[in-house]
């Protein structure tokens, strides 16, 4: 890895230059086609939803939040780890971090953009989005989320961009290898970087400051997202542990997302010599620790209400462990915690593919966990939301009894209290993942996804010589 001590342009390794230059091969074209189709389907679905209203979704007065909120929490969770990992590794000076920091920061930025889009998809009146800024009230956790999300997004973009500047200067100095427009863009974005000592010192201080500031902001974003649920009087949501619980879950899913992206980038761009088994193993150990941490939180969040057996909480827990949501709950435990834990711990599978597979399972499991957070609580409100039209005959059988302060409410028969997302919702969900991949791909084709230059941190330059990770 060039330490870029000199003002003259160091060379970009050919395999990294190739990620920016070569036309997409068949694999790339196939991926782009799939992701573009998914995004297109979602855009069509959203156009339909704008016309028909949220009636195009399966949401109703019971399940007033659905898959968009699940996706929102999922992407917020993923976003949390990227910049956080990068910042922590930077601050602790872990020498092996080098090839994964940019990749991780990019996960944060793109995931936050998608999370914001999910909120707009969920709004009944997206045309009034600007009301949040016009009439915003700080009593509402939504405003906390708006503040936290925009702060984290801004901070993460600065963090990412600052560390890109030396590489952008390198690209600018490559001569006529790029199209003229691209060349001009690199020139503008490089901000006149020449790697002088003064510039390097300034950059070092800037990234160092952001690396510190970004950590509490990263913790805040998922805590505040948890408070969207925690500040309501609903069983399963109204709990003091929900903030830390979300943070632990976000770290877990976020690290898994970074590993997943590492594997995809490694194979898509043939960067095996940069993203080595050692990186996967180190992050794999981190994932094991987070797996155990999250399991601990899951035990905690269910143990206290389960033991006391408080009426509505007990009903919710029963539906999770044994009732309507048991299949999803135990699948989440199985593929979100047990299976990845085994894959990560067993020596046989403690390799690049095994760790990547574990990460994919964690991501699926954590998406399910978001589902389990959002949906089941809404199926058991303290009082039923009667969806049936006014019937003149009273209920014939107590299909559902809901505990209350004094007695139970006998619910009408024939009511299925279930949330099954519609095609519109699935299409928009597919678009969320498709757009994530497209934006990520576009970025990886524009700036080396593995940082070339470490010019901003001369203090660590000597590490680069000894680490060999980047070579």
């Amino acid at each position, binding site marked *: 890895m060039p330490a870029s001590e000199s003002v003259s342009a160091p060379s970009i390794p050919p395999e990294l230059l190739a990620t920016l230059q070569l036309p997409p091969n068949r694999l790339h074209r196939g991926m782009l086609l799939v992701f573009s189709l998914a995004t297109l389907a979602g855009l069509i679905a959203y156009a339909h939803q704008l016309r028909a*209203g949220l009636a195009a979704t399966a949401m109703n007065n019971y399940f007033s939040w659905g898959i968009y909120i699940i996706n929102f929490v999922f992407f917020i969770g993923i976003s949390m780890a990227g910049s956080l990992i990068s910042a922590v590794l930077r601050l602790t000076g872990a020498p092996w971090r080098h090839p994964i920091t940019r990749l991780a920061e990019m996960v944060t930025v793109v995931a936050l953009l998608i999370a914001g889009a999910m909120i707009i998809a969920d709004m*009944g009146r997206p045309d009034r989005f600007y009301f949040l800024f016009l009439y915003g*009230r700080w009593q509402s*956790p939504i405003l906390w989320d708006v503040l936290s999300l925009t702060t984290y997004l801004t901070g993460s973009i600065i963090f990412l961009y600052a560390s890109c500047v030396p590489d952008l200067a390198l690209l600018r100095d490559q001569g006529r290898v790029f199209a003229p427009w691209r060349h001009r863009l690199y020139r503008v974005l490089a901000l006149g970087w020449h790697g002088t000592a003064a510039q390097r010192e300034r950059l070092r201080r800037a990234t160092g400051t952001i690396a510190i500031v970004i950590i509490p902001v990263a913790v805040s974003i998922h805590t505040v997202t948890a408070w969207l649920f925690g500040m*309501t009087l*609903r069983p399963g949501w109204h709990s003091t542990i929900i903030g830390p619980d979300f943070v632990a879950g976000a770290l877990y899913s976020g690290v898994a997302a970074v590993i997943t992206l590492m594997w995809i980038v490694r194979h898509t761009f043939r960067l095996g010599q940069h993203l080595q088994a050692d990186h996967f193993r180190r992050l794999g150990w981190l994932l094991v620790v987070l797996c155990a941490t999250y399991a601990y939180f899951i035990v905690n969040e269910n143990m206290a209400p389960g033991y006391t057996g408080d009426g509505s909480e007990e009903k919710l827990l029963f539906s999770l462990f044994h009732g309507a949501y048991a299949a999803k709950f135990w699948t989440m435990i199985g593929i979100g915690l047990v299976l990845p834990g085994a894959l990560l711990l067993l020596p046989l599978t403690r390799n690049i593919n095994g760790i990547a597979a574990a990460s994919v399972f964690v991501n699926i499991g954590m998406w399910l966990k978001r589902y389990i957070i959002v949906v089941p609580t809404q199926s058991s409100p303290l009082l039923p939301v009667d969806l049936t039209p006014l019937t003149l005959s009273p209920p014939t059988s107590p299909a559902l009894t809901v505990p209350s302060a004094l007695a139970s409410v*006998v619910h009408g028969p024939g009511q299925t209290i279930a949330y099954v997302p519609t095609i519109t919702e699935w299409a928009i969900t597919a678009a969320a993942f498709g757009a994530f991949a497209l934006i990520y791909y576009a970025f990886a084709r524009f700036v080396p996804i593995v940082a070339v230059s470490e010019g901003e941190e001369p203090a660590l330059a000597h590490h680069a010589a000894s680490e060999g990770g980047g070579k």
Partner: protein
Amino acid sequence: MKRSDESPGPAGEDDRTSGDSGAACKCKSTVDHGRRDFLLKGIFSAGAAALALPFARGAESGKPTAGPVQPTRKVPVLTSDGKLIELDVAGTDVPDHPHLPPNDPAVRIGVPGRRWVMVIDLAKCDGCKGCTVACNKMHNTPPDREWLKVYEMEDDHERKYFFPKPCFQCDNPPCTKVCPVDATFKRQDGVVLIDNERCIGCRFCMAACPYSTRFFNWGPPPKNPVAEAHAYSPETGLPRKMGTVEKCDFCPDLAAQGILPPCVSTCAMGAIYYGDENEDAVTNSKGETERLHQLLEDRAGYRYMEELGTKPRVHYLPPRNRSYPGPKSGDHKNASV
């Protein structure tokens, strides 16, 4: 309410509509006849069979002066002796009276000096759902929602009872706290309203409300010429708008003019009282006016799930010494099917 203080009973109802707000009420005559007729029928059926109603004083004062009545929608009502009769739904057309527009600052303040309050006597509610029907008609509610629901409550040991549930207009409302744009707000007269020209449709208030009182307009609201003829006011919620939240509004526009909400005025059993906490008086459909604090004290009034800290403005009187047979396990169902 003060009106009914002066002249309780159905006669008072007549006075009130034609006197106080008659000038503003274009559809007065139909309302009057319908409501009078309705009340008289209710009194006949309830009063004749059960003169021994504990709170029936004043109910006999009205004399039948029924005008011509168009056959309208019927609602089944269970009388106190367990008979099922059909009554017209009446007196529930949207009255043409002043509403404050959404941009008027007064709409967020309410009627000065008032603290609207409701008391529901569970010993009297026989579960006829007349209040729900009247409310639906008043607010042109689409068929998928009921602003005022009547639950049938049961537990393992006690007799069942009916539980009408409007919005509780909490004094510590979880819904208004979480609204990011101040679209739902608490007024000084105690009422919690929604401005659907402000609501962004995030549905956080629905998640926050522990009493399941809020509804969302998921799609375009059904065409409704009556509702669409009105200029929008948060005090009526009409016309509806897609992508916004709605709920029981405590009929603050009616209250401001001394008119009882339709759920109160159409209750054949006189189970729902409405009034002003500052005045310490609540009135039901039979014109019975009670001292609020006395009523709550004598009858051990309580508020639903008070332990949540929401401080509801709707009080309940426990279903002790019922004035009707009550929903026995099988009998009532058979009677009304």
